[in-house]
Structure formats: C-alpha cells, structure tokens
C-alpha cells in the first residue's frame, strides 16, 4: 500500500483499496494509543474522508481568492538525489507548527525506522515514503533541527577540492554520486553489526571512506562514536535511530499538542488507476482559503520529461506543499512549494517560465493539478 502513496520517480505498482487505507488508518490510531514513547506532543492522527465532492469546474477570478503564505516556510529545500520529497514536506509542516526549521534528513531516518518505513525499504531502499508516516514519527518523537542535523552537508565537495588543491588526481566522482546521502548510508549499513575493531581497521570499507560517510551524515558525532553505535546496535535501523538521536540529543522539536490532519485519496479502478481525481480539489481549496498549507501527491509528468518507453501503468509520484492560490493568466492556479531547490531551468514548458516558476515555487493551473492528483492532506 505504501508504495502507491509517494515514490518520486520510482514505480508505483502497489494496490490501494479504500478498505486497506481505512485499516491502515485504524492501525495508525491504535499505534498512537498504545505508544508510551517519549513524546514532545500529543500524537497526530489522520482520517480518510471519502465523502464525494462535487465534480471539478474551472473557476472565475472572483472565486479564486489570492493567498500566498510561502514566506513562512523560508527558502525552498533541496532533496538532492534522494527521493525524500515526503520528508521535506513533513519537515516543512512540522517546522511551522513547532517554530524551528527541522531536518528532513533526520525525519527520513526516523521514518525508515518505523514499521511503515521498514516495509518501504524493502521496495525502494531510501527512495520513498509517505508524508503521513513521516508526520506520525515526527510528532511522536520530535525531530532534530536543521542546525543540529543538516540535510545539505557536502563532504565530497570538500574532499574533492582538497584533492584538487593538493594537485592530486580527481577523485572518482561516480563514487560521490548525487545520491551521496544514500551512498553514505550504504557504507554505514555495510558496517553495522561488525565489531568496533573490524569497522575501524578498514577491511570492509576503507577507514577513510567510513570517516567520510560518518562525517557526512553525522558531523556532530565523533566517527569513533559512530563506529561504536554501529557495533553495539542490533540492526541498522536501531543504529540509525541511535545516531540520529545522538546528533541532537534532547534538542528535538515538535508541534503543540492537538495537531491533526485529514488525508483524502482518489478512488482507484480495478487496474489501480486513480479515479475522480478532480474531486480532491475542493479539499485543497478549502485549506488554502483557510490559510492553511496542504500537501498534494501527484504525477509530475507536466514538470519533468517521462521515459517514452515506460509502460503506461507506471506512474511516478511526487509530493509538494501547496502554499498559495491566485487567478493568473486566465486560470485559477495553485502555488506549489517544490523541494528541488530554487532553480527554475529544469521544468518543462511552461513551468520553467518566470511567470510560473519563482525560485522553485511553481504556479500550476487547477485543472492540470486536478487531473494528476492522487492525495491531498490538510490540517484539520
């Protein structure tokens, strides 16, 4: 089920029946009730509202009031080469409700330690997740701040420059892939469970490679302490949990008690294709009118080119926050806060145009968004 929800640029072949979703929601609520873990806030919980909304009709200017609350989120995030759009969205939401800019990296790591995240890892390691799942763990446990656990650390660049300055050959950039966070996680994953001596003697991964990965992911921790954490935990998830927690100690942030969200899903046909997607739009519209940010999960085919040879039943999904609305160029448009940095050059026409892209925020017509929606999440 989780596969379906949001996997940026990964296959979405999972079956999502409403009954399954309902069960998931009930299970989630039960988990909250049973959990007595340290909490910085009352647990959030989600309801699926399946009440049908009226069919979509394009609106006139007077029914498309201007709203723009992007400023409260600060500069756009950049998810780098990992499929953590879900963690960026959840971190943004929890940031505004906690008053602290929170770390998507820390939140993603927490998500992958949850039961849902572990399931996700079996399908697409570190490359996807759900906003709801990330919100659950974030609210329950609190999240490290971006200041304590940075999401844009760039150790490889530093190392490359050091090598260039010293006249040494260029390092293998292939190794320092754009998914550098994932690479570093793999290095630590390979070492988890080995003895401290084995980790530090460099037989599995070179000592230098280990220190790079450790420093990249957990710059505030001594690599020896990271090695100790890897050696003494029972599994990788436990190790990551330990390391993330150690990075910010007790400085974890969450919203005030009582934060609740509603999540709305498109119905699916027998082949799992979304139906009546436009009926999700009123829920989004209502949130924006109430000056509340909302998240959407959608097929971003209008933003990025698709592999022409990909099967028709393969759907790429992406999630973003919606932070505004305005009547522009004869249409009602929503303002999407993307998590791919502040550049505008990479979007397909017309979305790279300055009229439609403002430092990574995209104005998208309601009709185009409605046709690609599969989920809308709003604050209750």
């Amino acid at each position, binding site marked *: 089920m989780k596969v379906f929800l949001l996997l940026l640029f990964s296959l979405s072949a999972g079956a999502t029946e409403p009954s399954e979703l309902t069960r998931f929601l009930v299970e989630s609520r039960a988990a909250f009730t049973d959990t007595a873990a340290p909490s910085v806030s009352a647990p959030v919980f989600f309801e699926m509202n399946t009440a049908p909304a009226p069919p979509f009709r394009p609106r006139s200017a007077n029914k498309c009031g201007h709203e723009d609350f992007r400023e409260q989120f600060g500069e756009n995030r950049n998810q780098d080469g990992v499929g*953590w759009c879900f963690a960026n969205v959840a971190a943004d939401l929890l940031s505004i409700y906690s008053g602290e800019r929170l770390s998507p990296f820390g939140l993603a790591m927490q998500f992958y330690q949850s039961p849902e995240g572990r399931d996700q890892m079996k399908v697409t390691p570190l490359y996807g997740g759900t906003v709801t799942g990330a919100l659950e763990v974030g609210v329950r446990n609190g999240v490290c701040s971006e200041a304590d656990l940075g999401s844009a*650390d*760039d150790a490889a*660049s*530093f190392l490359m420059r050091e090598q260039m300055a010293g006249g040494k050959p260029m390092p293998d950039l292939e190794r320092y892939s754009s998914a550098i966070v994932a690479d570093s996680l793999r290095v630590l994953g390979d070492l988890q469970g080995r003895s401290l001596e084995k980790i530090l003697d460099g037989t599995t991964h070179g000592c230098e490679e280990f220190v790079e990965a450790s420093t990249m992911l957990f*710059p505030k921790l001594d690599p020896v302490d990271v090695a100790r954490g890897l050696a003494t935990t029972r599994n990788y998830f436990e190790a990551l949990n330990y390391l993330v927690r150690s990075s910010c100690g007790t400085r974890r942030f969450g919203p005030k008690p009582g934060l609740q969200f509603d999540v709305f899903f498109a119905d699916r046909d027998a082949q799992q294709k979304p139906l009546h997607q436009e009926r999700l739009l009123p829920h989004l519209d209502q949130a924006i009118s109430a000056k509340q940010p909302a998240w959407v999960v959608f097929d971003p085919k209008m933003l990025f080119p698709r592999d022409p040879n990909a099967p028709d039943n393969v759907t790429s999904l992406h999630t973003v926050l919606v932070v505004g609305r305005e009547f522009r160029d004869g249409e009602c448009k929503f303002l999407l806060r993307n998590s791919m*940095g502040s550049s505008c*050059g990479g979007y397909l026409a017309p979305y790279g145009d*300055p009229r439609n892209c*403002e430092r990574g925020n995209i104005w998208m017509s309601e009709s185009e968004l409605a046709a690609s929606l599969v989920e809308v999440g709003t604050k209750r």
Partner: protein
Amino acid sequence: MIWWLLLSIAAYGGVIPTDLECQNQGKIRYVSLGKQHIETAAYCYSKNKSYFLSASCRDRDCAATKTSPCKVSLAALSREAGNPGFQLCHKLKGFAQVVEFYDGKKWWSMDRCLFYDGSFVDTGILLGRRNECK
C-alpha cells in the same frame, strides 16, 4: 563589481533568461563536513535569482556547457529517485552541490553542478538543456 549584460538566448538554447547580473568577486558558501565554507568565484544569476552559472559559462566556453546532456537517456534518469537535475549532473561526471550565493545584499539558496574545470551551472539549467534534446 557588478555589471549587467545581455546574453544571447541562442547561446543556451533558451534555457537561460536574457538578463543576467554577474559578479567577478562573488561569494559562494556551502556546508561540508559539518562546517561552513565560503569561496570566492565569478558567477552570474538571473534577476529573479532562479538561474545560476559560473561566469566562465557565459560564452559557453566551459565544461558545464560543452558537455552534452543529450547522451543521458530519459530512461536512465527515470530509474533514479530524487532531483533529476542532480541525477543528470552525476551522470555527466559533474558534482551536484547545494550552495548559497551572495548578491551583495543577501544570501540566496541554490544548487550547482560543478565540473572538472571549475565551471558550473545550476542543475535546473542542466536539466533544461536535457529537456531540449530531440
């Protein structure tokens, strides 16, 4: 020193806006190994701060613009998760990096794809060039 210039749209196949502001002693900062680093570089950016490239790439005389993104298939990009501009950068043997640049008044978040000769373009420019491939 700041100066304004017009850049031919044809030079970049329409990916870059026509008006760029450039700095030859600009500042770029990024976090690496838990520490913030600031470097001095010559670069240009669009008035709306949505495009960013090294000054050496203005006239297309740099690795970042000489490298053809068309050789990377959409299938190869689609197989990867995350920001496709970062993936494209990686496949072109560049190094994608989250940075901030200074315009003389404030810092602006951005990213760049850094190539072996020190030249760079933001990953959106790179991806935009890929979008124009036949």
